[in-house]
């Protein structure tokens, strides 16, 4: 079952960019990304092995040829050992499926290097097994996500798959999707909402809608 509510938030025609990567078969029915001269290089796909869906994302991203990092609950090691130095030299794109607090931190660290969240999605699990997805970002990514989730692709694989659709020649949009996940698709459900995201240079992208960038309750 899938229901959809789409509302256009902006209309910015932009040059297309694509993340390097291979689409999953289930994503093949989504509009194919145009083959562009310029593709966005993804420094790393970030996952957290403490959350099954996130771990599945890491595995799928790796399968697609992305470099991956497990933050194991805390972005400190990734920041200190890899990202800080990388961003100092060249602020490259990263993507992830993590808990919201990891995005909260990485987004703000990215700001200091001129980077912005250009795709953002929140995935809430309901008690009845439905997943409520709220997304904003480049329309091709949103469309690809919707296609994949309607085919009951697991959340982790779905998010990894749409990285290859990070392609913004169309309007920047937001959408809300309520979808039933395939039982056992990512192992046990994570009991806290996860977020998926891409942080990149905003020069070619509109920043993703920030209306739902709530952070987990933190101290």
């Amino acid at each position, binding site marked *: 079952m899938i229901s959809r509510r789409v509302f256009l938030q902006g209309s910015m025609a932009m040059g297309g960019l694509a993340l390097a990567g291979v689409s999953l078969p289930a994503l093949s029915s989504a509009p194919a990304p145009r083959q562009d001269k310029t593709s966005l290089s993804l420094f790393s796909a970030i996952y957290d092995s403490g959350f099954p869906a996130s771990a599945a994302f890491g595995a799928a991203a790796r399968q697609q040829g992305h470099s991956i990092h497990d933050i194991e609950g*805390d972005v400190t090691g990734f920041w200190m*050992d890899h990202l*800080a130095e990388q961003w100092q030299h060249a602020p490259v794109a990263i993507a992830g499926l993590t808990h*919201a607090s990891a995005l909260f931190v990485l987004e703000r660290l990215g700001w*200091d290097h001129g980077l912005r969240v250009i795709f953002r999605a929140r995935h809430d699990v309901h008690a009845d097994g439905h997943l409520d997805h709220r997304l904003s970002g480049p329309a091709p990514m949103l469309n690809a996500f919707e296609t994949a989730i309607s085919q009951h692709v697991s959340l982790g694989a779905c998010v990894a798959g749409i990285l290859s659709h990070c392609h913004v020649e169309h309007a920047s949009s937001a959408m809300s999707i309520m979808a039933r996940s395939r039982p056992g698709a990512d192992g046990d459900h994570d009991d*806290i909402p996860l977020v998926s995201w891409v942080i990149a240079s905003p020069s070619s992208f509109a920043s993703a809608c*920030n209306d739902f960038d709530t952070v987990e*309750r*933190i101290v």
Partner: protein
Amino acid sequence: MKLPKGVKAEDFNAALEEFRRVVGEKWLFTSDEDMHLYRDAYSLQWGEPNELVASAAVAPENVEQVQDVVRIANKYGIPMFAISTGKNLGYGGSAPNMAGNVIVDLKRMNKVIEVDDKRNFCIVEPGVSYFDLYKYIHERGFKVMMDVPDPGWGSPLGNAVDHGLGYTWMNYRDHFGSHCGMEVVLPDGEIMRTGMAAIPGSKTWAENKYGYGAYVDGLFAQANFGIVTKMGFWMQPQPDHFLSCVVKVPKYRDLIPLIDGVNKMEDQGLIGHPRYSCPMDPLCMQMEPEIYKPTPELMALNSRPGGSTVEEYQAYAEKQGHEFWNVVLNFYGPKETVFANWEYAKNTVFAPIPGVRFEEIENYAFPLENPEAIKKVRNKVALGIPNMSIFSIGARSAAMPEPGDGHAWFSPIVPRNGEEFIYAHGVFTKAAREMNITSAPISVTNVPMSWQYRTYLYLFPVFVSRSDKERNRKSIDDFNKLIKLAAENGWSEYRTAPIFQDAVAATYSFNNNILLKFQEQLKDAIDPRGILAPGRGGIWPKRYRENS
């Protein structure tokens, strides 16, 4: 864009144009999207018309550019608010005290000027983060230990000038208290150095705080008399050994002898930061979810405004086999002495408490360089290792099931005395029940927060909601009432977000608020145009006092 109060658009635009000439087009920010980055992510006024948002931001590269920017602001009467790395979550973030201020973003000034591990000090610029300093120290093999707050992305200088705190040895964890000498750009653009730093060619900038004459450094923390551009800090030499142990006591009123014992240990210089916990306390469960776990029964006890009674928690603790309180003691020094001091704590200091239990948690020899070993350290901050793990807490904690959008800390200073802390439990839980406070975990399980040396904080978060503005308005109202209630009992905040700074400053009211009036007199003399951080610390310049 919100223009600052009392500034004409043509003056504002002229000032921006001059700022642009000083720092370059790239480092002047005026778009709404850019201003979003300087909002307080944890603001209780998020999205409200009165949210404290900046109008523009300027990012100088060096002290000369700071001077130029300040002179331009003076020329046009533009109010400015300086930030270092601009985090300060829970106490206002990067947001100014008054909407429309121009942010002076000092992140580009990120040089470590000096680190000395023989005389144990450092001198840094405002844009240096704890991560930066840690990296600098470890890449060069300096044998000094930092003192860091939670989380570690902030700036030692910025944290110090907001009276921030850390987790190691007594004087080091008071970050302003451990500073030594500073360089400041004054409101007229002049540059001043304090203490021994005022000597041209000084060889003891970061070692002797006072030099000669009046000690003025306090004017530049939680205040608005200048923009600090360099700061020295005393540092702790890296110890040979670290030992962490816990003392557990079974009864609620055991807090009294427990605090007495901790004071005896700490005031003799035998331990560093004592970390109190209660296994039933919501905040403790949230901060250390691997150790303190909620049950449905405990969640029910904690769900009432003000929590439940001492008797109910005591019964729950006994049923679960929990202690009521515990305190982690951290020992630093030669291996022989840290273990000897632990023996002294067990056999002499805490032994008289009936039912007391002792456990050794972990011990490490320095230098601690193995990344895998560092990963296993329970409280990395106790070893001066900056980290962001506190941000993963919300994701892992079941203790507070409702998702929140940040918090504002309520943090009055209270005496290091068990009877007084128990009395404070009574005051705040009664208030929570009477005011029906559901947005803050107030309970008789609240623990003393012991970051400050010689006083404790009665600290709890007031949670923010981005979606429920009515709840936020009630939280602001509750917060203001709690500030007054604390003051009626002789306590008041050590630090607070801008929207509460006037209320807190007003509680320091001896002799008809002469302390604040004195600061206002100074403000009018030093910053007659009232351009630097109007309202910070409750200090408003004449131009805004008269218009208030």
